[in-house]
């Protein structure tokens, strides 16, 4: 390779790089460089050195020249530039990282939307179930109220019945039947009288008296030695099955009921006598 060394040292490569060779000698240098790597690398080293020399003598042209030069070049206005091979490592960094981010945010967003939708559905289902439950509770409360009302009613009736029963079974009580007078022939009622304890009660279960108006009430009288004694007032219309306790009296020969103005009268209105019964 002595020839190559001589060739390199001849200075022709420097002249080539400095552009100081005729056309035919330039082709010769290029052919040599293509054939011999030593020539090629020598050429590269010379080029780099001369470029460095030029750079070290660089002078900035005036600012406005750039615009003039760029106007003179018919470049593609499209800014997108895709380097063919070399730029790969440069482009991969900004390209892949945001891509991952984009995907991450895209999936997150989709997941959020899905979650929101599921939440809405769940909320709706729960809400309607809650409404159903509230309705059921209201219904249960109502029927519970009805039931307890019924129980209270039955309880009251039971007490009244048992009171009546205890009175009816008590041998101290005398059951006096009052029959309707000519004023009310179909009327009848029973008065329970216990002379030992001076108790007088009306058995509403057996009460059959004509209805009174708002301004009138029935008044019960005891006939004691021919004189009427007030035992209190009562109404015909009643939902009670029980016994109503009247004023106390020790002895009587008969009981009578008259129709009197509401609140009762001091002495009976004899022509308004509805029922009467002797002991």
């Amino acid at each position, binding site marked *: 390779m002595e020839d190559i060394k001589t060739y390199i040292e001849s200075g022709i490569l420097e002249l080539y790089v400095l552009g100081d060779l005729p056309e035919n000698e330039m082709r010769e240098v290029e052919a040599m460089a293509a054939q011999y790597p030593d020539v090629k690398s020598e050429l590269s080293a010379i080029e780099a050195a001369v470029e460095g020399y030029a750079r070290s003598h660089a002078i900035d042209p005036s600012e406005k020249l750039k615009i003039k030069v760029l106007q003179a*070049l018919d470049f593609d206005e499209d800014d997108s530039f895709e380097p*063919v091979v070399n730029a790969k490592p440069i482009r991969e960094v900004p390209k892949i990282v945001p891509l991952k981010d984009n995907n991450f945010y895209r999936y997150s967003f989709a997941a959020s939307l899905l979650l929101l939708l599921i939440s809405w559905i769940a909320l709706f289902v729960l809400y309607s179930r809650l409404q159903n439950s509230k309705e059921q509770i209201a219904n249960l409360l109502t029927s519970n109220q009805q039931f307890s009302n019924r129980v209270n009613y039955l309880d009251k009736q039971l007490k009244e019945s048992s009171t009546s029963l205890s009175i009816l079974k008590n041998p101290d009580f005398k059951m006096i039947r009052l029959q309707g007078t000519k004023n009310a022939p179909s009327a009848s009622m029973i008065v329970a009288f216990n002379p030992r304890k001076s108790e007088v009660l009306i058995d509403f279960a057996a009460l059959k008296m004509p209805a009174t108006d708002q301004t009138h009430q029935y008044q019960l009288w005891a006939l004691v030695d021919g004189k009427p004694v007030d035992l209190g007032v009562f109404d015909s219309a009643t939902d009670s099955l029980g016994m109503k306790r009247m004023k106390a009296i020790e002895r009587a020969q008969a009981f009578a009921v008259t129709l009197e103005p509401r609140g009762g009268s001091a002495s009976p209105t004899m022509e308004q006598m509805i029922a009467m019964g002797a002991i």
Partner: protein
Amino acid sequence: MKTRKITLTEHDLVDALRQKKKIGAEALYDMYSASLFGVINRIIQHEELSEDILQETFVKIWNSFPLFDSSKGRLFTWMVNIARNLAIDKVRSKDFKNTAKNQDIENTVNLIDERQNTALNPETLGVKELVGKLKPEQKSILDLVYFRGYTHVEAAEELDIPLGTVKTRLRSAIITLRSFFN
């Protein structure tokens, strides 16, 4: 505020220039205008004419870019030879000789060297050091050929030395540069 300068790798720049992309045009200007202008200005030694030639150079680079063969050498070598040829043609033209008479060449050279030592990019910080390393006879031949557009034959005549000596000195000058830049 100066606009941001675009820099691409030589490979990307070549791709962009082949595709005639705007970024290629801008990067080409940003990366090479000062170096090419430095060479052109030293040959022509006239500011405005040098800028005209620089513009012509870029247009020629742009339009004849398909002719560039990266396997044959560096992009800059190809471009600087276009610039030098245009500049030398200009210097040798008739209308230039008329224009140039009005200019004091020595003053221009001084002006250029002053500017180069003060206002240039960081790469030029080592210029004085470099000039110190080059022997005066190496530098004068290199500058005649590279910056004044002389052929080595013309340089031999100008300096009145044998052609072989011109070649040897050019080679030794560039070897010195290689130790500095490579």
